[in-house]
């Protein structure tokens, strides 16, 4: 499990558009760099990010080596129902990092 930071409101009104910010510690080694001995440093990247809202994918990202180290991804989600938001990062070897946040949605005023 990698260290991930997520900023998402815990409470929102129905229909409100919530800003979601995610950051995860990962070198995103491009595979183009060489070490001091001139040997190629193997590629090591996260290839996929997914945000699920009550099991339904609402945002997915396909990442390539040109995404900076410690990938930061910010997007928006419209609040619909109370439940959970799941954040899932997958690396090139299918190792998964998963973080879940509870969300309470109040009825629209």
């Amino acid at each position, binding site marked *: 499990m990698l260290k991930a930071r997520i900023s998402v409101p815990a409470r929102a009104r129905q229909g409100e558009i919530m800003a979601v910010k995610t950051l995860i510690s990962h070198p995103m080694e491009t595979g183009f760099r060489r070490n001091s001995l001139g040997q190629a440093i193997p590629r090591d990247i996260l290839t996929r990010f997914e945000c699920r809202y009550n099991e339904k994918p609402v945002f997915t990202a396909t990442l390539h080596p040109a995404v900076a180290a410690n990938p*930061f*991804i910010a*997007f*928006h989600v*419209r609040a619909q129902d109370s439940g959970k938001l799941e954040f899932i990062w997958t690396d090139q070897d299918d190792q998964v990092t998963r973080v879940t946040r509870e969300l309470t949605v109040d009825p629209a005023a």
Partner: protein
Amino acid sequence: MIRTINRRNWLAGAGTLATLTVQPRLLAAVSEPVQSVLKRDFPTAEIQPGRVNIELPALAENGNSVRMKISVDSPMTPTDYVSFIQIIAQANPLPDVARFDLSHANGLAEVETRIRVSAEQDIVVVAGLSDGSLWSGSAHIVVTVAACLDALY
């Protein structure tokens, strides 16, 4: 020849955009790496310039991490929304940067991330709408310290 087709697309799109006062940089000149990515991912579709707004610094001190914000003009309703946003950095060793898949559940077609930039270039963004139309924008960036340079050491 490839250039001519895009010039034609550009001219066609420019007419419809003429009424807009603020225009994003248009996809005027398209380089070979961008062409190959576009051909691979959108073999048949026509890409129109416009609707894509890119926030990118004109000058970046460090190409290893450049903040980039993309927004697409869209109401994001269940019938009319942005389905994906794709970033292409033509001068990078690998032009693919990232692709974001969205839906009306997002409410707002706006994505922010940090990318690596290896040289001065136009970063191209293609956005796909729910009706199947493709829109594009580009932003020029100059980097003083390029990403991938440390590859030499």
